[in-house]
């Protein structure tokens, strides 16, 4: 499973990081620091939850 984030559209809500800081690391300004994350086994549900938490709807999950 992969997380893909439209990083340039991030406005810094940081709701994804509130679900999992490990999956959704932020920069020092509180904006998403990555565009793509390989979801480690066992963290799939957190990844989906983090994607759903984004008010800007810019996080998509690619199931395998």
């Amino acid at each position, binding site marked *: 499973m992969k997380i893909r984030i439209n990083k340039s559209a991030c406005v*810094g809500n940081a709701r994804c990081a509130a679900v999992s800081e490990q999956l959704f690391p932020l920069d*020092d300004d509180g904006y998403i620091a990555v565009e793509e994350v390989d979801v480690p086994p066992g963290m799939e549900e957190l990844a989906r939850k983090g994607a759903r938490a984004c008010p*800007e709807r810019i996080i998509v999950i690619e199931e395998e």
Partner: protein
Amino acid sequence: MSAAAISPAVPKPAHVPDALVYDFDMFRDPAYVADPHKRVLDLVKNAPPIFWTPRNGGHWMLLSHAANFNAARDTEAFTSEFIPKAELAAMKARMPPGMPHIPIPIPINLDPPDHTKYRAPLQRVFSPKAILAIRDSIVALATELVDAVKERGHCEFMKEIAEPMPVQVFLKMLGLPLDRQDEYREIVAAHLSDPSPDARAMIPKLQRIAASMNDTFLARRDNPQDDIISLLWKIEVDGKQSTIEDMQNYGVLLFIAGLDTVMNGIGHGVRHLAQNPDLQAQLRANPKLVPEATEELLRRYTFTVPPRLVARDMTFEGVEMKARERAMLFLPAADLDSKEYPQSESFDLNRENKVHIAFNAGPHRCLGSHLARVELQVIYEVLMARLPTFRLDPDKPPTFHCGHVVGVDSLNLVWDV
């Protein structure tokens, strides 16, 4: 406030169809001022999802979640620059020397790309990490304020807790003197209750705000401390260091946004808790639910109404709009849109989608949202931990004010001692 007359109606522009006209005064509609979110639910059910009201000079109201979400994220169609740059420059050129600067609240009244440049230096001080670092001090302050009324069995919650808590936190962050708290609050409340539809009419009020901070600006320029005003002196935008004019621009925005928002969110949330002893019991039994409850309270009682200007003639969501018309992002309605949130009127901790836009969407997402969230969570936690079940005082029902911030004026609580 509820006794104030609604504003006169202006004639409808020719391009607005009758079906899209709905009479609603966003400052003084009597039912709205009596119980704001009850009236919002009524509008969500009975008014068009985008309507034009003839009150307060005539303007659009965007109600649906989709309209608010799309408008907030399209800063080329909906501008935040209420006085166009060229006009502002001409006004300044006409001013005789020695006249006070015209403060423009930045970054909120800028569009990208300028917005991005001026907002960037502030991101770090309001980031989740920076706010986490002051969380303990917020808990200490909230505890002190709640303990001060605890033995009494009643309080006027707005004046005694909801107002001093975020205001003191924010004055300290900015570096403004705490002993002028009442004066600052009076200035900001007067500013936000002004329904004037013309941005130019707000200039003297903004100048008054800037003047109230000037001593501190100058003191921090010469003698920097660990606060936001000192930090703003050190930043550079486009390679240029801050001037006193830049400080006033930033200052008026931080002042307005910081001193009159969170307290009202707290007021709406605590009113709901006071009306729902079962929810209090649930949160007391399981304080880990407080963050989820905070989000659902924000959705249920979204309380800011950011204004925009239509930037060009266009058709938006099927509605014809003309350049320079005003449009309100009616976020309280967006977060009660039943298309987005089934049974939107129920507070539901188990709701699958609690992802609200109480802090707006798009690049103008509330800069202070992380601070606001922590303050809301902290006050709910502290109230649950320190007070027994509290309820509304049946003899003194809460009172409200409406406008760009939908706020609580008074909230009398009682509990058994």
